[in-house]
């Protein structure tokens, strides 16, 4: 059997989902026998490769760079998974949405508060442009499966990965669906 090409990516999130993935502990060793991690914060490649079997996307879509990433991932990946609440619902990063458009928020945070330096960070074009509305991944690209939780507990990730490897339908049941 061909080795499974797994990618992960960390968008607008706290990396807690990746930490939870690392909590798989000795199961990681079992995984290493059959899975290649071809892209992600824990491995070296800088370019997202072609022909990825499965990609776990952690985090909400918050910037133009994130949009670029997820579209690229969609084009090169068989199974795209929204990994954790930020990717599934927008979660904590989306809590800024009710405050309105991003420009006045940045202006207030970086320029108007007394403890700031009175200037916006970065030159133009250097930083990704933040979106006015933070959205979950499935509102930008088609998502094949959802793995909720903040973070998803390691046991749930294990169950999910086993489902994926067995080729069963990637749908969690019961308390495996609990957000938060």
């Amino acid at each position, binding site marked *: 059997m061909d080795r499974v090409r797994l990618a992960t990516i960390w968008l607008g999130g706290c990396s807690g989902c990746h930490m939870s993935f690392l909590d798989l502990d000795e199961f990681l060793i079992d995984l290493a026998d059959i899975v290649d991690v071809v892209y992600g914060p824990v491995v070296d490649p800088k370019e997202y490769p072609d022909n990825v079997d499965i990609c776990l996307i952690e985090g909400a879509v918050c910037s133009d760079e994130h949009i670029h990433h997820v579209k690229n991932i969609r084009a090169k990946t068989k199974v795209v998974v*929204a990994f954790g*609440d930020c990717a*599934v*619902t*927008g*979660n*904590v990063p*989306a*809590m800024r*949405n*009710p*405050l*309105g458009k991003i420009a006045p928020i940045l202006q207030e945070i970086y320029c108007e508060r007394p403890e700031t330096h009175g200037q916006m960070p970065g030159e133009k074009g250097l930083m990704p442009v933040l979106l006015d*509305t933070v*959205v*979950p991944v*499935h*509102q930008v690209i088609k*998502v094949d*499966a*959802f793995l*909720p939780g*903040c973070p998803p507990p390691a046991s749930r990730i294990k169950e999910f990965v086993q489902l994926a490897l067995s080729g069963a339908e990637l*749908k*969690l*049941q*019961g*308390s495996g*669906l*609990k*957000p*938060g």
Partner: protein
Amino acid sequence: MAVKTLTIDGKAISAREEQTILQAARENGITIPTLCQLNGTSNIGACRLCLVEVAGVPKLLPACVTLVGEGMQVSTDSEKIHEYRKMIVELLFAERNHVCAACVENGHCELQDLAISVGMDHSRYDYMNPKCAVDITHKRYGIDHNRCVLCGRCVRVCDEIEGAHTWDFQGRGANTRTISDMFVPWGQAVSCTSCGKCVQACPTGAIFRRGSTVAEMQKDRTRLDFIVTAREKKQWIA
């Protein structure tokens, strides 16, 4: 006392004529999801989660307000009903700013439980991201409108059990807000007796005890049941 015989999901049951389909189902161990329903307060049929199919009736009927009838064939379990329930829960999650990870009620929340029971893994609908206030002017309690599902349980428990009628609604549609007295901050609502029944009645983390942190708030509905049983049956049992 007249008894009616009917079937729910094919199971033959008997019920007293003044019972609703929901009561009859619960007595017989059949679960119908609910949200706005709260034992001890009136039923308003607002959340539409308890909709059931009754043979020969073209419309879906809310089990919480529909009385049992002789020979009724009730179905709580069709594919259509499951799909509608799921859509309703998804709509609720998209409507306000429900962030389970940052909520006092995380792990004890009825909305969260509903999401699990209807098999929702994400909301297919766009998030509305409405601007909602948090009112912590009350000495002991707070209300976070981001988490409010407008079930009206606080309104009814305050009016019907406590008799204070501090809570009510203002506005229409998605702009409906739960308000205290004539839209004053809760801390200034003179009718509030600080009894805390609304805190216990609230299905989500919208009304909470101040000082609770994430996942710390656990509500205790048995106190409400105790009062209602005592009043209605003169039995002082918990």
